[in-house]
């Protein structure tokens, strides 16, 4: 009896916690489903009285560049993903397999790099991108954005490379495989899940968190990522909330769904103790 009561109480507390965690997402969903007039009721209705999907059609009229913004974020996500993977895979392999001079220093650098946010490096990044002649271009967003995904990508991949037994690789060498072939045919297939996870993690970050970089690196509305693009409509004096929330829901569902796939791997990468310092 007392045990049952405790269970009910625990369920109740979990629900309370979930209410807080899902509150804005719930607000986003119900606003996106409300007809224009209902969004302006005071006090607001807690459940849409006459749910409609018309906002998902009208959002293209309110935010005419919406497909463009989504496309830009897709390109930024893909670019950041490719750069991160291309640089991180060899680095992680090297760190886990070779007695590299200054290994501890490199690992420290990675942990340190993970602490930086775009806002701290905005002035010099703006400077570098300007000198490279890349202001207001897509490569600017991809190059500057990848610095912030690289550290976790390397740490995560290195912990997976560590887990692949060296004997497998050595057996391949004995069989006459070159080191590169052994890497490509024996090791990489085993860490493929981690590589996919890193690719998705970097894609999500490129898609979602380019807001600050876009503030200074991009002027043209045609190159805005989705976060900046929607923000332009948010900061107007009269915000069309139902349409904006419909567009936000579309923009947010991509990274949210992808994130559920890779969350487990990211936790492993963040508990960086896996790579021995």
């Amino acid at each position, binding site marked *: 009896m007392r045990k049952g009561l405790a269970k009910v109480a*625990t369920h109740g*507390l*979990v629900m309370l*916690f*979930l209410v807080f*965690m*899902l*509150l*804005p*997402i*719930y*607000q986003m969903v*119900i*606003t996106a489903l409300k007809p224009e007039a209902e969004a302006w009721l005071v*006090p607001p*209705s*807690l459940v849409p009285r006459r749910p409609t999907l018309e906002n998902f059609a009208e959002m293209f009229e309110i935010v005419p560049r919406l497909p463009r913004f989504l496309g830009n974020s897709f390109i930024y996500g893909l670019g950041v993903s490719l750069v991160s993977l*291309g*640089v991180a895979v*060899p*680095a992680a392999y*090297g*760190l886990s397999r070779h*007695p*590299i*001079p200054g290994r501890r220093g490199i690992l*420290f*650098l990675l*942990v*340190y790099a993970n*602490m*930086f*946010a775009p*806002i*701290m*490096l*905005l*002035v*010099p*990044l703006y400077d*570098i991108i*300007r000198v490279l002649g890349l202001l207001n271009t897509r490569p600017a967003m991809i*190059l500057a954005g*990848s*610095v912030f995904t*690289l550290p976790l990508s390397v740490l995560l991949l290195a912990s997976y490379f560590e887990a692949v037994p*060296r004997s497998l690789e050595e057996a391949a060498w004995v069989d006459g495989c070159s080191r590169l072939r052994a890497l490509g045919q024996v090791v990489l297939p085993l860490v493929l899940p981690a590589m996919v996870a890193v690719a998705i993690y970097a894609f999500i970050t490129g898609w*979602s968190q380019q*807001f600050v970089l876009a503030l200074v690196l991009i002027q043209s509305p045609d190159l805005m990522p989705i*976060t900046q693009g929607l*923000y332009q409509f*948010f900061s107007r004096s009269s915000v069309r909330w139902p349409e*904006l*929330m419909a567009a936000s829901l579309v923009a947010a569902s991509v990274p*949210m*769904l992808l*994130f559920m796939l890779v969350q487990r791997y990211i*936790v492993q990468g*963040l508990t960086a103790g896996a790579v021995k*310092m």
Partner: protein
Amino acid sequence: MFHRWRGPGARWRARWAGFLYVLPMLLYLALFLIYPIGRVLYLSFFDVTLLSMTPQWAGWSNYLWAFTFRMPGQEGVYFLASLGRTVLWVGLSLLLKVSLGLAGAILLHQELAGRQVYRTLAVLPWGLPWAIAAMTWAWTMNTQFGLVNGVLLRLGLVSQPVAFLGAPVAAFVSTAVADAWIGLPFMVVMILAGLQSVPGDLLDAALVDGASPWIRFFRVTLPLVRPVVLTTALLSTVWTFNSFDPIWVMTRGGPVSATETLPIAIYNVAFRLLRFGGLGKAAAMTTVQVLVVTAITLGYLQALRGGQEGSQ
């Protein structure tokens, strides 16, 4: 050391072959992280603005400016006020992150029907772009049409709608709540991972000794997850310190300067206050922030090492 290659030549080759793998990453970090950090330090000693990009030597004057400049119409020294505000804001957000993160992780660790669904729902916000999360929070906290006021009014908890973002103190708390919300899934998942790694036989032993659930939690589980909570909190401290999107989107540092934390102030000085500010002055402020982040990172590594030794 683990390599079974023979001869000093081969050994030397192995070292530098290994280095080749890491080289692209080092070059990338050198160009886009190390150089920028150095550039911030360098620029902090120069007069540069967006309008005149040629740096002019300025000595310590940018730092002097940071420690003396008072914004017309505002109380206190601009930089110091924003630094103090940042410490309070980070403290509030972090308090929420750690306490709710611990509570959430403990709840989701209990054996409940539907636990997997609960866990998935609780960390769902993790993938939400911060800027979109902030816009949605602003709308959720809207004075007239927001969900929070809708619920509070219906429950009769308030008689007048609350202007969550309209008054200085309210905006300060509201942005910290939104920021804590953004960082919570990370806290919950990390602490939950820590809870799951508590060995079952230790708890069984305590059970055999007749320890009550409370004793088992406070004497066995909590001490074992303390290192995880500590390292996660330190990591989160740095990220909270750098937090820009929620405040920028929800209040732009306002009302007046109530939510103008260091990242917002740096952005304003660099790119908006063209008359008072400039890139050199922003660089001096950023240098202070880099020092803070470096100090916390060293503490984080210390805690990480302690945690590893403790678990061995």
